[in-house]
């Protein structure tokens, strides 16, 4: 049985402003979905709301992970179930090395993960190091990366690679990638794209959030959705990205009677 994330008629507001207004989607392990939408359409709000950010208020709707309603769960409980979010803007944690953090995070989230950060609660150092080194090599990052403080002074590209490194290490079931391609140069998009594509398989379902289809050249989604005004207005296959690229969002806005909001 494959695991799925199912979102039903979800409404999310921030500071009392409704941002997500009736969102429906189901992502299964093994599937790749792309969610496209212009700036300010609510993509990140959706992503953080799904992960359990405390300042994003869920007004109504359901979010079901593998048959379990997760809306009352803290972010860490959702992570332990196998949900992952690659942040559009990752937060710096000064003084905490990427390696130390990842060892605790990996130990906490992997299926047989235990809690705590005492030495014997953690995955063995040797095993961890070996795996980390391999995965860093795949992402084309230097060994010294592991010793740097988490996202502290990272360039845009380094941050995104660190997010994908975490994705690779934590082995979630369903991953949401929030604009992992933005702010990257062409080479970096290729590296990140190929890495994610390497991770996609029967064990992992992905929701790729983007407003440019660049990343999608490396990871072909089976499903493409367009988000406008807080809900999906169009769903289709690969051809939808082509239409978007040629015509932009305006014809879709017009079709659905949605005015362009100025951000």
């Amino acid at each position, binding site marked *: 049985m494959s695991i799925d994330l199912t979102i039903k008629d979800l409404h999310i507001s921030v500071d009392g402003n409704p941002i997500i207004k009736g969102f429906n989607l189901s992502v299964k392990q093994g599937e790749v979905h792309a969610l496209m939408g212009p700036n300010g359409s609510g993509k990140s709000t959706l992503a953080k709301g799904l992960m359990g950010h405390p300042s994003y208020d869920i007004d109504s709707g359901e979010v079901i992970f593998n048959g379990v309603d997760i809306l009352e769960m*803290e*972010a*860490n409980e959702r992570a332990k179930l196998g949900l992952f979010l690659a*942040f559009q803007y*990752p937060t710096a*944690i000064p003084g905490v090395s990427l390696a130390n953090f990842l060892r605790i*995070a990996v130990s906490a989230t992997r299926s047989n993960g235990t809690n705590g950060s005492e030495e014997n609660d953690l995955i063995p150092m040797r095993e961890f190091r070996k795996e980390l080194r391999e995965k860093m090599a795949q992402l084309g990052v230097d060994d010294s990366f592991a010793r740097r*403080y988490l996202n502290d002074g990272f360039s845009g590209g380094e941050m995104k690679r660190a997010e994908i490194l975490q994705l690779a290490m934590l082995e979630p079931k369903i991953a949401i990638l929030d604009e992992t391609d933005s702010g990257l140069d062409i080479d970096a998009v290729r590296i990140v794209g190929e890495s994610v594509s390497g991770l996609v398989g029967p064990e992992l379902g992905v929701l790729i959030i983007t407003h440019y289809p660049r990343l999608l050249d490396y990871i072909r989604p089976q499903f493409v959705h367009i988000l406008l005004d807080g809900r999906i207005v169009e769903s289709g296959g690969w051809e939808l990205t082509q239409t978007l690229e040629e015509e932009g969002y305006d014809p879709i806005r017009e079709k659905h009677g949605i005015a362009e909001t100025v951000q």
Partner: protein
Amino acid sequence: MATPETKQIDELGISKDYQYGFHDDVKPTFKSRKGLDEEVINQMCDIKEEPDWMREYRLKAYEIFKQKPMTKWGGDLSQLDFDDIYYYVKASDRSERSWDDVPDDIKKTFDRLGIPEAERKFLAGVGAQYDSEVVYHNIVEELDKIGVVFLDTDTALKEYPDLIKEYFGTIIPSADNQFAALNSAVWSGGSFVYVPPGVKVEYPLQAYFRINSENMGQFERTLIIADEGSQVHYVEGCTAPTYSSESLHSAVVEIVCKKGSRVRYTTIQNWAGNVYNLVTKRAMAYQDAQMEWVDGNLGSKLTMKYPSVYMMEPGARGEILSIAFASKGQHQDAGAKVYHCAPHTTSQITSKSISKDGGRSSYRGWVDVAKGAKGCKSHVVCDALILDKESRSDTYPVIEIAENDTKIEHEAHVSKIGEEQLFYLMSRGLSEEEASTMIVNGFIEPLVKELPMEYAVEMNRLIQLQMEGSVG
């Protein structure tokens, strides 16, 4: 002469001097009565068989102490009752306390820190005898070969009276402040270290291994002399909560850094919540000498401690790294003082404080540049992390500059644990408590990485315990 006990000691090859105050279970124990007067001091000098000059020194300090008004700045000392304190307790007396009397939370902490049984008892003040005496003895033997002296100050007064007399109280005179006067009157224990010219001590000297439980006492007195071009790192305290039934700890630490020497003095202390920890620490650094204080303060009811460096000659450098963690009912008034008394001297102060559960931490700093001390540089960074609305952090920096040609920088930041930081870490599977602990450990990491490895590990674990609220 051979009682069964001394024979055993001879077999171990331990110098008989180290029996002093230790294996003497047969000797009558002594505890002065509560409160302080000349008689108590005289009694103490008699028992310790001290030279007359030290007796006079103590009595004079006591006169000064009596005249000093109660310290009004820093923290609240109004509950401190000088008449309700034992000023001299002989080491063997401490062994009367039984393990059962040690509070449960302290025992639990020992468990969590993985402190060996024998050390626990020692740290809890239960056993006067500490199994590491053999370790200590080996260290002393090694040090002896390179001419380094590492003794408790009482023994040093007997074995090196001239050195003690030359330096004792020259860095911190009795009249310096109320608590320096008190310590000068009633001091016991502490360490004496002398490093000869050009000698570099490769490993940290740890007070931890010292066999004399008086070392952990209330009024210890430490004197370190680093001769020209020498190098030494001294480490005192340990991260286990130092359990003491006495409520006042008032130490004095004096350090002489001669030309071209380098001294680092590391302290990690975690006092029980009833303790007033009022310590005076000062170093004088001469030409091109470098003095570094690394000072970690946890626990206690009130800590007032501002390690200082006087840079007396050109090229001297003073560095102070201070970490304070104030939890419920605690006030950490910590900081640093640097005095640029000569040209081309440099200093760096880094202070990191954390306040939690209504705890209060204050940074109190003093940067002084004397007239004519041209080309001095001082850089001060104070970072405060406040974990909740009930907690508090203040900074009281004073900068006194009598010379124009100087460069002084002062930066202060106060931060709270950000919601975004917590969410980020929690989205990776860490609980809220694990996430905040990680953020706090990250916050003090720049200082923790300066600690010897085992202390760094314990420090991180200790922060974890503090975050659980299971200590203190």
